[in-house]
C-alpha cells in the first residue's frame, strides 16, 4: 500500500495530473476555513468516479453536452465555495452548518468534474489496479483511493497549512490568492466546455516545462 501511495505522490508532478490536482488545489484554497473538508470531499468524489470508470461501471464522456454540464457544475462549485468562505469571513450570523454544507457541495461538484476529466498516466502500481479493476472492482477501490490520496497530497498540505499557521492562513485567504484559486477551476470549466484538453493542458505543460 505504501508503494501505491508513493506512486501517487510521484504522479502528482506529472502533466497528466494537472487536470485533477490544480482544480483540487483551487477548491481547497477557496474552502478557506473549511479547506480540510473540501480537500477530503474532492478526494472522495474524484476517487469514486475514477474508480467507477476504471471498473467500467460508469462511462461518462467529459465532452459535448455532458462536458457543458460538468463545466457548469465546476463553476457552480466555485461559486458555492466562494460564498461559504465569504459568509464565514463577513461574520454576519455565520451559520456554521450551512457553511459546511456549502463547502461539501462545492467540493463535490468540482471534484466530480475534475475526476471525470482526469486521464491518468499509469505507473506500475496504478497499472496493476486498473488492469484488475474490471474483474475485481471492489478490491481495487481502496488501492485507487490510496493512490489518489498520494496524488492529492498537495491539497491536503494546503489544508493543513491553513489550520496550522495564522500567517499562512491569512495569505491563503487574501483576495489575490482567492482569485488565483479560481483560475484552475475556470480553466477546468473551459476545458470541459470546449473539449480542448490537449491544447490547454498541453500549453500549460509546455509553458511550465513539466515534461
Amino acid at each position, binding site marked *: 500500500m505504501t*508503494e501505491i501511495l508513493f506512486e501517487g505522490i510521484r504522479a502528482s508532478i506529472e502533466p*497528466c495530473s494537472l487536470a485533477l490536482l490544480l482544480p483540487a488545489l483551487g477548491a481547497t484554497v477557496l474552502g478557506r476555513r473549511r479547506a480540510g473538508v473540501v480537500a477530503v470531499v474532492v478526494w472522495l468524489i474524484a476517487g469514486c468516479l475514477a474508480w467507477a*470508470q476504471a471498473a467500467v461501471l460508469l462511462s461518462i464522456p467529459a465532452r459535448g453536452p455532458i462536458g457543458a454540464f460538468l463545466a457548469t457544475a465546476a463553476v457552480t462549485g466555485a461559486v458555492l465555495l466562494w460564498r461559504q468562505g465569504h459568509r464565514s469571513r463577513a461574520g454576519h450570523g455565520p451559520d456554521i452548518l450551512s457553511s459546511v454544507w456549502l463547502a461539501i457541495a462545492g467540493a463535490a461538484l468540482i471534484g466530480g468534474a475534475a475526476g471525470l476529466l482526469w*486521464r491518468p498516466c499509469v505507473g506500475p*502500481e496504478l*497499472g*496493476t489496479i486498473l488492469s484488475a479493476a474490471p474483474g475485481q472492482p471492489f478490491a481495487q477501490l481502496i488501492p485507487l483511493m490510496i493512490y489518489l490520496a498520494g496524488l492529492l497530497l498537495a491539497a491536503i498540505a494546503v489544508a493543513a497549512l*491553513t489550520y496550522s499557521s495564522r500567517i499562512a492562513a491569512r495569505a491563503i485567504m487574501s483576495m489575490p490568492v482567492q482569485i488565483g484559486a479560481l483560475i484552475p477551476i475556470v480553466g477546468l470549466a473551459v476545458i470541459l466546455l470546449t473539449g480542448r484538453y490537449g491544447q490547454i493542458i498541453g*500549453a500549460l505543460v509546455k509553458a511550465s516545462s513539466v515534461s
Partner: protein
Amino acid sequence: MARLVAAAVLIIVVVLAAVAFTRDDGAASLVSQRTATEVTTVDRATAGPGRVDPADGERQAEATTTEPPPTKPTSADTSTTEPTVLDPAASGLATVTEPPQTQTATDEPMRQVIANNGPNPGLADLDGWLQSDVNSLAELGGKVVVVQLWTFGCSNCQATLPNLKALYAQHGSGEGDFEIVGVHAPEFAYEEDPANISAAAAAEGVTWPIALDTRRRNFHDWQPGRSGYWPRTYVLDRQGNIRFDHIGEGAYDELNQTVAALLADPAL
C-alpha cells in the same frame, strides 16, 4: 489543538513527499536493469497481478469459452482475473500465483495456456505511419506482434521502452517472426506533430513501426469504455488474437514470457 493536528498532518505530508521523491524508484530502476532474457525472476511490485484483464467483459467471457481447459486447477481468486498461465518452470511468478500442483501423478508435460481474448480491433483511419513499410496490422499476419498504445511525452510510456527495446533486439528487430507496433495516440497538442514524434522516437531509440493515431480513434477502439490509458500493451499471436493486455508500466516478465511462448510454439 486543531493547530497541533494540522501541524502534525503537515509534517507527515512533507515526510511522505520527501520519501516518495528521494527513495529509489523501483520501477524505473528495474526497467533500466532488465533485459528481455531476465524472465526467471519476478518483481511483484512491478509485475503485479494484472495481466490479461480486458475491460470488455464479453471479450473475457469469450476467452474463457474458447480456451482449452487448463491442465491444473486454478484458485478461485486468481482464475477470473489472471487468465494468463505460463510455464511454472520458467517463472517464479507461477509459484506465487498458482495453486499447489495436483497433476504430478501423470507424466504429461506442463501445458502452456495463454488466454485468448479474441481478434484485435485492427487499426483503421490512421493518420499515417512512421518508420514502417507496412500500412496495416493485417500485413503483419503470421508474426507475433506487440502493440503498444503510447504517446512520447508520457513518462510511464518512456519507462516501458527499455524492456521493449531489449525484446525487439532479442527477437530480430522486426526481421523475424516478431514485430512491435507503437500506436502513437497523443494526449497533448504538441505531441501531435509527426516531426516531434520522429525526434522523440530517435531520442528514445524507438526503431519499430509507429502508427499515427492522432485523432485517437484506435486508442478508444482498443480500450472499451470512456477511459483510455497510456501506456497499454498488447501481444497479438500469429492469427491476430490478443493474448496479453496490460495497462501501464510493469508486467515485463509476463509480456516477455508471452512473446517467447508464442514464438516458440506457433500452435499456441
